């Protein structure tokens, strides 16, 4: 059994990231939601292209949601994490990230567009 400090971290991680992400994704299953993710999932389901057709659309959205919520937990100080850079410098992710990490990840032209090699959907390109 890990020590109590790790247990505390685990609890926060599950509550603030895993559970929040599941709830968030559940909201995309709301048939009345007009959120772009919800609409995309419904469209994929309507296309009747089987499990692969639906899952290939949902997987990146779910991953994005989980990472978003991890960063959001950091932004809001629920998870206080430090990052050690390649040159050994340590930074406080909440403080140095200005509480804006989640937005930088999710927004148009953000980290997904900058660094990801896998598929993703920019739902905000029309807002720029």
């Amino acid at each position, binding site marked *: 059994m890990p020590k109590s400090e790790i247990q505390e971290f685990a609890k926060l991680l599950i509550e603030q990231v895993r559970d929040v992400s599941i*709830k*968030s994704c559940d*909201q*995309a299953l*709301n048939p*009345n*939601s*007009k*959120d*772009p*993710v*919800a609409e995309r999932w419904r469209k994929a389901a309507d296309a009747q292209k089987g499990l692969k057709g639906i899952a290939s659309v949902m997987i990146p959205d779910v991953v*994005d*949601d989980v990472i*978003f*919520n991890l960063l*959001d937990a950091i932004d809001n100080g629920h998870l206080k994490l430090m990052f050690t850079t390649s040159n050994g410098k340590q930074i406080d992710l909440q403080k140095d990230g*200005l*509480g*804006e990490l*989640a*937005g*930088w990840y*999710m*927004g*148009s*032209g*953000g980290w997904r567009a900058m660094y990801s090699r896998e598929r993703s959907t920019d*739902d*905000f390109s*029309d*807002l*720029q």
Partner: protein
Amino acid sequence: MHNSDVYLENSRLAKPFRTGGHPGFGQGVSAAAREEELQRVEGMKIAQTAVQSIGMSTKDPWGPPISLPQYALAASLIFTKATNQTIMLGTPPKHVLSTSILWASLLHDKRFEQVPMSEATPGDIIIGSGWQHGADGYAGIVVDHGRIISNSSQGVQDNSGLAELQRNHPGMVLFRYVGFRNFYRSRQLANAGYNPDESRVPAGQPGGGQWTSGSAGAKAQGPQIAFGGRQASETEAVKALWAAVTESIKAGGQHPTRAQLEQFSEAFDALQKYLVDHGMTPEEAFEAVNNAVRNFTQPGSGPNPGSEGVLGTYLGKPAGADIAQIFAAAILGRSNVPDKGADSKPPDEGADAQNLGKQTSKPTVLKPYSEDGGHHIPAKKVFEGDPAYNPSKELAIPNAELKALGLRHTTITGAQKTLYSAYAKLGKPLTWEAVESIETQALVKSGLDPARAAATVRETIKALIASGVKEPTRIPWGGK
């Protein structure tokens, strides 16, 4: 004279709108071709309405000088009618029309479709958000081949070249009303309950609007007018007209809703119809109602001195005639514009005149963040460093409400980041107006009804100001 199908307009400037479609429709041509023809013909009329509502002629592109507020209001009203969105009376002219909100609204309105800029025809609405090209926003109507009437941070223009726009601002969006056949479906006005024995308002009488001055109760026993689905006295109708104007300001603050404008239009409509039924020509009746509006909107006259000048204050004085003209343009379109999602839905004939101005959009449930978490509106980073801002006490859309409405924190935040980053690139300080626009768009992006999103954001900003927050302190995601 009895005319059961009167359409209000400034006949000095315009020919009547066609009410029964265009000859030749459905005679051996394809549906697409018919729609195209409708767009070509009726789109021009929409454009004419926009131009004429500000006192211009489409035949005289250089026309009389345009004063910015009047045009901006005209465009706002016309767009308001088409989008269920609000106009922003009282804001500086360059912000009168929130192009970003308009854009978001049209995008989600199934009555409009986007068409390529290369296919622009008269009547099409062109919108450029400030985030797209470094301006405060641009909204225009194509009025004829290659020419656009527009308003932007550069001021009113009547000679914007379509080709130039396409070349310099390819990101702009063009919207077209879908289904002109329904758009121009004829709608008969309410039965005026005409009684030939009633004393008539003399035709051509210059003071046709005399009932608007002095005591509102002076003619309580006078002739009846069909209004709000029942017979109302002149006084009641005049009161309703007055209420529509004032409630648009009071209930909606600076943002009267489409419903309020339509209520106003109905009052205007009923009054003019009454006068026509009692011997006036439509032109004379228009002038009479014009006078009524002028009396109401100029300081020192009307039944409620002290507040009736509010509109005039917004527009500069004297403004009554201009306002009347603009309202007439609004009415001209309104009498044919179907309600959203119900093309042939009749107006709310059961509405009582006393209910005018009460159909405002309500905000979502809002609670202090400490109660149920949720999503801060506006983003809390906007007020970082302001000692009056307490993120746990400020209003947020609580988690339960987010769930009920199908809104997602993920999407709203992504939209906020995108919009604030874009705004930061403009190099301007962040204003309350910009915050309002950005936050509204962010909520709309996640699927909230635009009117409700706007009401929600306004409510939270109001609460912030009331709690002592003076102004935005920084632009998150790229700002200082």
